[in-house]
């Protein structure tokens, strides 16, 4: 909780900066843990229910833990017309999960985003922080191969 206190410190314990605070906590822990939210609630005197309301309203926040790799599929208009739905459905079939879910072995979390603003690369899949442009359904297998377990151990 020290790290969370430091985040609260950074924003001067101002209740109005709560969204920035949650953004930072999410970055730190990859999702909003219940104990973290309870801590923030006590420190800033914000009801836990209000934090829950914010955490569920804004799509950047997640209340569930994330897999080792975050696979984000851009579903912006440019990606859509260039074939993003086929890429997404291939990923769903391959990982056997829907967007927002995590594989049972905790390796991958699948997510969609509305637009990354890098439309020249459409359709785009971002794995962790790495952009993969012009992705098509047949490239999905090779793309995931780069993140399979043996390599992830290094």
């Amino acid at each position, binding site marked *: 909780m020290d790290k969370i206190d430091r985040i609260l410190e950074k924003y001067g314990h101002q209740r109005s900066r709560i969204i920035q605070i949650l953004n930072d906590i999410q970055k730190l822990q990859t999702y909003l843990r219940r104990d973290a939210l309870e801590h923030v609630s006590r420190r800033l005197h914000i009801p836990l229910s209000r934090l829950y309301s914010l955490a569920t309203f804004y799509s950047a926040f997640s209340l569930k833990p994330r897999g080792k790799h975050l696979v984000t599929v851009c579903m912006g*208009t440019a990606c859509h017309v260039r074939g993003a739905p086929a890429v997404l459905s291939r990923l769903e079939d391959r990982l056997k999960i829907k967007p927002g879910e995590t594989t049972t072995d905790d390796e991958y979390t699948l997510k969609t985003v509305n637009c990354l603003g890098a439309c020249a*690369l459409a359709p785009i899949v971002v794995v962790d922080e790495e952009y993969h442009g012009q992705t098509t359904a047949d490239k999905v297998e090779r793309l995931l191969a780069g993140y399979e377990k043996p390599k992830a151990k290094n």
Partner: protein
Amino acid sequence: MRSRRLRTKEYRLHLLVCAGTGCVANRSFEIKEELEKEIARKHLNDEIRVITTGCQGFCERGPIVIVQPDGIFYQQVKKRDIPHLVEEHLLKGRPVKELMYTPSPRETPVPRMMDIDFFRHQRLIVLRNRGRLDPENIEEYIGFDGYQALEKALTRMTPEQIIREVKISGLRGRGGAGFPTGRKWELCRRERGRKKYIICNGDEGDPGAFMDRSVLEADPHSVIEGMAIGAWAIGAHQGFIYVRSEYPLALKRLTIALAQAEDYGLLGDDILGTGFDFNADVVQGAGAFVCGEETALIASIEGRAGRPRPRPPYPSEKGLWGKPTNINNVETWANIPMIILRGAQWFSSIGTAKSKGTKIFSLVGKINNTGLVEVPMGISMRRIIYDIGGGIPKGKEFKAVQTGGPSGGCIPRTLLDLPIDYESLTQAGSMMGSGGMIVMDEDTCMVDVARYFLNFTQEESCGKCPPCRMGTKHMVYVLDRITRGQGKEGDIEFLEQIAENVKLSSLCGLGQTAANPVLTTIKYFRDEYEAHIKEKRCPALVCKELISYTIDAGLCGGCTVCAKNCPSAAISGEAKKVHTIDQQKCTKCGICISVCPSKFSAVKKVSPVLK
């Protein structure tokens, strides 16, 4: 103070490496490192300097490297090209043809950036500094007349004079609705009360629009300068810049820029010794499209869920924390320094009678030259798509262009010569919006596009008012049914009816405009709806439930590639023999069609008429 020393040093050549999001995704930072290494190896460090700049706009061709002062444009530069590039051009002075832009295989390479059609037809005001300066170094912005407008405004103009100037310029909000900026400022200025705020709306949520991201990444100081001028005119001392969380690079550069501006006394207390105080802070969004609506955005800055509230009162009366607040978007703010510096007359000489200046469009989708273009208002769609955008890839037929994001509509081929301004787009059933232009070709299904947008607005609807919450859901339901081949007679009329109701009775802009994609696609592409409903057929071969994949026995070479790649083992056939697809097993993922070698092109998509 490293930058100060650098400035006094003269270099023979400058290499500008684009570091916008698109090029960074194409590993432009590796290109920069490699260039520096190679330059050091050839002992050219004292003669040549490598700079990373903001987005050049021609994202399709990234990573981009420009050699100045000659303006030689290199595109799609790869790591392995660097030794050759350094040796030939930088050392021996022979520009490398293979890395230049070539409009088509038959034509000769175009060496200079300004001779390339994509750049030649543009008129840069907001993007004036794009790709020519390092956005993380304030001195470079100052070197290109940066903060001169602020100095002029603070020392030689009264707030009233500034507002008059902005009014005469005819500048209208670039975020979508097109409200006259000068009038907005005047309303806020007139409000009593000592505490006022200004906000920069950088919550660029329209999918396919990324001009605000690019401005913030390439030239953050132009926005900050515009805001400082606006603050002086309105009488505000605190500003907020709200940026969506999907833009990490823009957030980073903006934060650096604000700190530097403060260091140089261009923000903070007693700016330029004039006694005027102004501070600005960055606020990061958290992924909610509706926060682009001004009252929702204000709620979000206040730390609440971003749900819009009814207007009036408008933010100019009661905005952030109940105080008078002026909101403009990124592109609007970035116009201000140029209007102050060069004058309202100059600005208003560009554009049409009611829409002045330029507009940035992001040209994306089925277009050869994807990228950002800044053009004078009044230019025709045809010139943007064909002269600048280079037309449609693979010789396909143009079908429509979607403007205005989820609030906009689809404009058909018959309106290609429409001069673009706020009024003409609204009249066509679309809107200017933030300036996204998504080009669609014959392979795009317009019913699927309408469903895509409605699905988007339905997910992003905040749920506060029932017409939007339920109306969008219902439209998605009907559109979904149509694309699955379960459309019924009367569905089109039913859609039109809900659309009209949602439009008239929704609380905010999101709901009021949500039906535009449906209404315009019905208006201009009714035949496609009818094909789906009556014939259970998707003419563009997009809707999964209405198409199937087959292998043309006359073309199949029996190479087995499709069978090997099929993830659901639906393809059978031996080597050198014709393959067949088991329709029961086929999941229609389309992999077979993309792996089938082009010498055969045997896999076909079909959508037969079903009664």
